[in-house]
Each structure stands twice: as structure tokens, then as C-alpha cells.
């Protein structure tokens, strides 16, 4: 698997070259959000707003009203959690084209509860006018810019940074409202988003080898959630559906799938894997994924329960887990 080092850094610089309306706002996490080189390339379009996110979102709204396309870069928790009223009233209500680049989604950071955005998809899905996207690999980190740019209104993006795997070919960019079908089978349907897709890619082939065949969909658009491919995959599942998300199971991917199944009378069991209505704490991503049941083995066990199967699969039977160093040159600090 190709691992791309800091894909956003040069890609965003290239992408913004012919878009003078694109400006960047940052709240003292510029290098951590991989826009330090962008700032040095386009200093006249970069605005440091300091540790003052409420005001930053107001500035973003004002700039958008004047025809600019602000790309707010900071950690997710400081976009949807701390300044939510400003996000809702100064950006979302007026449907302004502000791009909220939300770093450190879910348990991707050892920064602990204060830095882990675990209910952001729920909050952003509930916010009218908001489009909600999530990147799952380097190709999506690169192509989400075009997707967000084309939306008439605000966009929230769960963003990956540092060392990011390339799971999908460069020639297959993210498309708004279109899930990727990564595996096909009739027994169960598995839906993943963001970093959990890499986990499912370890589990699904092993399950197939053990005789349990899954359709696996990678979701990059949380809202709108009306992709006919998703509905077809849900209807296809004979034994049940499993969602695996880097988020609380309340209000995120699992909930969106449940809503869709209920609305379309898809009568099959649904297992939602994710944080079970709990906060997490500061530790490595691999540890937290295992601890909270967000990893490949958690998916295997859920599928076994749904299908009443003992596959005999153990951790060693799966493709090796990719463990990222907490201390890496790919990150500005260990956060």
C-alpha cells in the first residue's frame, strides 16, 4: 500500500493557484493543519486569527459574503464544538460557501478527549444547509477540494493529515454523494468511512476466504445521504448490515444507515460499531481502535454474530495492521 506523506501540503497549494477567491483562516494550528507552506506561498491570502474561533467563524462568514471562499483550517473540535452558535448563525444559516477543514476526526489523535471529535458528524448532519464529507485516503484528501468547491453552501470536511494511505487510485476522485463499492457479496453489507475503511479492507477479504461474503461500501458523503448505491447494498444484505465508524454510534454513519433502512423498510438487522455513547481518552490510534471496538477484528466478530458463523479468524489471519508512529516528522507535534 502506498503511504503518502502530508498529501494536503502541496496539493492545496497547486489547487489554489488559479483560485484567487480562496483564502485560508487559521487559529494557531497552521502547521498542525498542514497549511504552513500555503501561508508562505500565498501570504496575502492567509489570515491568522489566533486562538479565537468564535470570531474566526464570523470573519469567515463576512469574507464569504464578499465573494471569497474561506477555507478554515483547525482541529475539528474547535470548529463544531467550541463555536457552534457562530457556525450555525454566521455561516450555516446564510448558506455561505465556507469550507470547514476539520482535522483530527474521532480517535485519530492521542490528544485525548479535548482533541477528539467524536460527535461532529452528528452535530453537522443536524445543521441545516451543511454538507458533510469525510476523507478516507490520500486520493480523497486531494480530491475533496474540488467536491467542496462545487457546493453552494457551507461544507464540513473530516480531514486526514500526516502519513495517509492511498486506498483509491488517483484516477478515481471523491464524488459528492457517491459511495465506493470495494467488495461485493450477498451475506452482509458493511459500510465504513474515513479511517475505518482501511480496517474493513483487512477484514472483508479474510471473511470471504472463510465463506462469509460481504458487500463493502466506503462512504465519503455523510450528508446528503441519498446515494442509490447505498440503498441497493442495504437491500442486498441477506443476514444484516454492519456500520463501522470513527465516531459515536449516535448520529453518525450508523444512524444515517438506520434512518435510510427504516424509511425504505429494509428489514434486516443492523449492527452499529463505533464509540458506544462514550468519550475516549489520550492514546495511540491503534490502541484506541482495538480498545473501543473500531478495528478489523471488531468487524469480524460482528459479522460472525450476524451470520451465526464461527469463522475461526484471529488477528493473525488478517492483513497486518498499519501502525503509525506517534512521534513522526509527518506531524508538527505529537498531537
Amino acid at each position, binding site marked *: 500500500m502506498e503511504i503518502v506523506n502530508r498529501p494536503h501540503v502541496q496539493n492545496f497549494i497547486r489547487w489554489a493557484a488559479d483560485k484567487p477567491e480562496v*483564502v485560508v483562516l487559521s487559529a494557531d494550528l497552521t502547521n498542525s493543519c498542514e497549511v504552513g507552506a500555503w501561508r508562505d506561498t500565498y501570504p*496575502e491570502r492567509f*489570515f491568522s*486569527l*489566533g486562538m*479565537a474561533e*468564535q*470570531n*474566526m*467563524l*464570523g*470573519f*469567515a*462568514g*463576512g*469574507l*464569504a*459574503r*464578499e*465573494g*471569497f471562499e474561506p477555507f478554515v483550517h483547525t482541529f475539528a473540535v474547535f470548529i463544531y464544538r467550541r463555536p457552534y*452558535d*457562530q457556525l450555525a*448563525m*454566521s455561516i450555516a*444559516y*446564510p*448558506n455561505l460557501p465556507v469550507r470547514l477543514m476539520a482535522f483530527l476526526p474521532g480517535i485519530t489523535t492521542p490528544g485525548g478527549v479535548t482533541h477528539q471529535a467524536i460527535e461532529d458528524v452528528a452535530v453537522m448532519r443536524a445543521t*441545516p*444547509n451543511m454538507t458533510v464529507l469525510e476523507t478516507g485516503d490520500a486520493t480523497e484528501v486531494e480530491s475533496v477540494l474540488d467536491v467542496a468547491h462545487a457546493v*453552494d*453552501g457551507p461544507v464540513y470536511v473530516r480531514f486526514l493529515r500526516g502519513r495517509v494511505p492511498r486506498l483509491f487510485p488517483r484516477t478515481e476522485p471523491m464524488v459528492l454523494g457517491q459511495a465506493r463499492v470495494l467488495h461485493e457479496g450477498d451475506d452482509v453489507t458493511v459500510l465504513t468511512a474515513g479511517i475505518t475503511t482501511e480496517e474493513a479492507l483487512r477484514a472483508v477479504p479474510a471473511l470471504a476466504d472463510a465463506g462469509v461474503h460481504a458487500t463493502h461500501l466506503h462512504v465519503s458523503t455523510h450528508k446528503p445521504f441519498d446515494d442509490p448505491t447505498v440503498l441497493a447494498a442495504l437491500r442486498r444484505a441477506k443476514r444484516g448490515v454492519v456500520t463501522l465508524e470513527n465516531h459515536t454510534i449516535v448520529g453518525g454513519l450508523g444512524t444515517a444507515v438506520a434512518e435510510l433502512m427504516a424509511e425504505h423498510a429494509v428489514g434486516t438487522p443492523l449492527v452499529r460499531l463505533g464509540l458506544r455513547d462514550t468519550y475516549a481518552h489520550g492514546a495511540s490510534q491503534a490502541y484506541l481502535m482495538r480498545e473501543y471496538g473500531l478495528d478489523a477484528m471488531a468487524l469480524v466478530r460482528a459479522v460472525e454474530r450476524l451470520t451465526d458463523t464461527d469463522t475461526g479468524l484471529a488477528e493473525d489471519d488478517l492483513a497486518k495492521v498499519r501502525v503509525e508512529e506517534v512521534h513522526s516528522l509527518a506531524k508538527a507535534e505529537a498531537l
Partner: protein
Amino acid sequence: MVTPSSTATADVERVAQRIRRRVFEHVMRNGGGYLSQACSSAELFATLYGRVMHLGPSQAPLEPVAFPGVPGPANPDYVSGGAYNGPRDPEFDRFIFSPAHYALVLYAALIEFGRLAPAALEAFNRDGSTVEMIGAEHSPGVETTTGSLAQAISQAGGIALGRRLKGEPGRVWVLMSDGEFQEGQVWEAVQALVHYRLDTVGVYADVNDQQCDGRMDDVMRVGSIGERLRAFGARVFDVDGHDVDALAAPAAMEPDGRPLFVLAHTDPTRGVPLLRERAPNLHYLRFSSDEERERYQHAFAAFDEEA
């Protein structure tokens, strides 16, 4: 239409008194309302529209449209209430209205300046109308949605920054209330305006020492707003908020790199001394008895004779 700089002091004062009268009349007809805000800020609105702001003619109908739905991709024909303040041409100023519960005073000001039909107040707080009690950006004269207080100044900062990037000379005027200075966001905004030397932003604040729960000093003391602002690096003028010339003077000065704050010290019972009996409960006038209502009706009649 009354245009800025051509308006004599006596005319602006008369307009202010008519704003107060129109709000008072409406409050009597509706059995209550935000009267003290009109008492304190009538000269502020009259001076902003009559002397300070460089605005083109209204781009909106005199009779306000019905509620057009909220902004969104499914509502491309949405029209901003900011259209009442004229076109968004580069040379024109912009008006950003922060304390949205002053909406009735704003509507009255728009009427006095010929930007809104007097009959528009018939639709005030009526179902399906844009002439809302608190107002959002579809309401006449309202460009941003600021009923959640203290958000206007940040949005104005973004607008001013955007206009500077585009090379537009027009200024951005913000009307605030003093209670908003309790919100942390205001101070975040002030430090950003100072940091980016956004001297095209001019804030007029109605310093009437009142908020919903009563006197500001009792609810949460902020002390001298002027001293705080100066410590942040802003350009500050403390003026008598009922003195039209004093209000207008700072706006006529050449910007000097610092955001401008005009702190208009006002009396929330100005023109309606009967309100003093209610102090410090001035935020919203609701009559507790027929007798009280009768006394206000007399006060209104007396106000009419004076005016």
C-alpha cells in the same frame, strides 16, 4: 429621501424624535414592546442614517415582501434585508445591525428616511412577515443574522477585510448595544480588528447601561468599555448619545489605522420620563395593569404635544 451630510442638525434631531414617537405609538398599540431601546438610540439611528453612513438609494420595495423562506440552495431568489440600505457598490458604506431586538427602532428609522413604508409596521411580529420582532437577514435593513448577540462585529470584520482585499473604499458601520461587551466574542473581534488595522470598521454602541435582567453593573460589571477598548488599541470616543453633532464628529475624521468605536452614552428613558419608575426593569415594557397602561397613554399624548 434624506441623504447623509446634507442633513442639518435640527433635522436629524427632529427625525430622532419622530423615531421615538413612532416606536412609542407602536408599543401603545401593541400593549408593550422594546420602548427604552428607542429612547436611548433614536439619535444614534438618526445620525447614522442622516449624517454618518454613505448609502445609495434603497434597492428593496417600500412595502416589505412576505417571508421568502430561509437562505439555502433551494431558495436562489432570497433577497437580503440589506437591500434597504442601498446597493453594495464599492464606494458605498455597509450597515451591520447587531442588537436585533432593536429591530422596531431600525424599522422606524427606515420609515423616517423614506426607505420603508409606514404601513410596514402593521406587519411587525405578524405571522408570515419579514418585519420580525427580533429579525434576521430577510428583515428590512438587516444584512446579517445577529439575534444571537455579539456575532455582528466579527462578521463586519470579515466584510471589511474582504472589501479591503477587493480595494473597495466603502466603510462598514456596526450598531451595537453595551450589553454585548459582556460576550467574549466581542473582545476576540476587537483584537482581530486592531491586529489587521481594519480602520474602515466603525462601531457605534448604545451605552445605556441596561440589559435584559436590569442594570449592567448589577448583572455583570464590565467597567469602562472605553478604557478596555483603548487598552486593546482601538480608537475610542465617548460622546453624549443624544447630541447629534457629537455623534457625527468621529465619523468625519480620517481613519488612522485603528478601528473606530463611538460610545454613545445614553438615557434609556429619554423622552419618556415615566419609564424611570420601572428602572431597572426597562428591557421590555409590559403593562401590569390597565391603570399603568392609561398612564403611558397620557405620556404618549404629552409626548405628541412636545413633538
